[in-house]
């Protein structure tokens, strides 16, 4: 059983996100600066494309 914070919210919307500390804000800002223009998941995307080529029957 999981804790439901409010009705009319989906299960995933009920996950309680903690507040962000100032230290975390700084570390994320520093990382974001380095990461903003790069992509890191090309290999996974190619794998996903390959998998989807093999889908032989669509669900009904």
């Amino acid at each position: 059983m999981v804790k439901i914070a409010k009705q009319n919210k989906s299960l995933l919307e009920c996950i309680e996100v903690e507040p962000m500390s100032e230290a975390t804000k700084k570390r994320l800002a520093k990382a974001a600066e380095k990461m903003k223009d790069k992509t890191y998941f090309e290999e996974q995307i190619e794998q996903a494309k390959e998998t989807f080529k093999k889908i032989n029957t669509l669900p009904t």
Partner: protein
Amino acid sequence: MINITAYPTEQLEAKGKSIRYIFESVGNKSIIKQIEYSYFGNILGSNVYNLGFGDYNAAQDTISDKANSNNGDMRKVFNTVLSTVPKFFEAYKSASIWVTGSDEKRTKIYCYYVDRNFEQLYDDYLFYGYLKDAKPNLVPYTPNIAYNGILVFKKN
């Protein structure tokens, strides 16, 4: 009751057809992690985004989706990934998410979560399971089957 807390995320600037979030895992050590939804194709009239997730290595400027962080906060990290799903569907209502782990064990974690919470999740989401050696290989999701991937749609 199970505590379902998550780390706060920060959305990065859009890069091509992707939505990216980063957050800090604060367990035994500090680890920056990235969640990325990357567009890669179309199925059933829906744009499909791959859910990518991994640890950021600042020194090498790389992300590993195979690292075992052992940071003592696996549940919270997993919840953080899940917490971005509603945000994704808020931005892309008719899109779908392709979910598969970087290895069998990680894929099982996603399936296990869906299995455990299927009834509640099914109120809002539609799931298809992918079985690489079956025919058909993409079928409406049935709990407790070891799928190789999951395709998730948001119900309207």
